[in-house]
């Protein structure tokens, strides 16, 4: 709807797919910002499969989770704790497998900003893993 209503604003300065993707990105970020801030993730909130996936990835031997669906659900929970822009970057970079240049083309952000956001998101994820591990032990 947004794209349709803004068609008269398209001036051809950038390729049409880029223009569409930037509207989509902006809309998604606005939607995430409008959502109510989610409460802090606790280990007790995890399902049995998610807790098992968490145990496997945080174990010393570093085994991958067997249940891919549980891993995805856990990823969604963790991403929900990030800021919308950081979440978008880490989603595109680590889950969708896009390059920094591709993300820059999609979002219009410069590559340095994307790297900073990715670094900040991963650091936040490490903190979350540590907290969940501590809560599991307690």
């Amino acid at each position, binding site marked *: 709807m947004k794209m349709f209503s803004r068609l008269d604003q398209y001036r051809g300065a950038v390729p049409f797919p880029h223009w569409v993707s930037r509207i989509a990105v902006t809309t998604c970020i606005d939607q995430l910002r409008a959502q109510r801030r989610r409460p802090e993730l606790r280990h007790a909130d995890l399902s049995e499969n998610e807790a098992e*996936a968490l145990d496997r990835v945080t174990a010393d031997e570093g085994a991958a*989770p067997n249940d891919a669906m549980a891993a995805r659900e856990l990823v969604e929970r963790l991403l929900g704790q990030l800021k919308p822009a950081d979440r978008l970057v880490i989603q595109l970079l680590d889950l969708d497998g896009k390059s920094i240049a591709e993300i820059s083309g999609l979002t219009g952000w410069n590559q340095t900003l994307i790297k900073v956001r990715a670094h900040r998101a991963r650091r936040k994820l*490490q903190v979350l893993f540590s907290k969940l591990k501590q809560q599991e032990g307690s």
Partner: protein
Amino acid sequence: MNSNDPWRRLAEAARRAPDSRDVTAPHGFAARVAARALAADRRPPSFLAHFSLRASLRALGAAAALAVIAAGAGYPAALRLLSEAPAPELSLAGGIPAPANSPAAAAAPAQAPAGAESPAADAAPGEDPVTDLVNIVS
């Protein structure tokens, strides 16, 4: 992101999960887009477009009125000329159309060649149009 990073292992496992996100348009989306498109068509035209349209219509009306006046003024004279003008006749030998009552037309049969060299001379003048044409060309 090192290989022992729990996030990396979790993301790799999550990537193996089938994407179950619903990508279909929400119910009523097409109707909303169509409604917006129709609403956009009903928007009033700009001042420039409105002015151009009115000026074009006025010019068209003036041109039509002038055409009617000119036709009305010239019709009696044109009708009189058409009724008085004699029908043109093809001269038989000279190749120049002449009125039927002119001296040239009266003398034309006498000027026609009567030699035996031309096969067209065998035919009587005025009987065969093709023969007349051949005589004119020669």
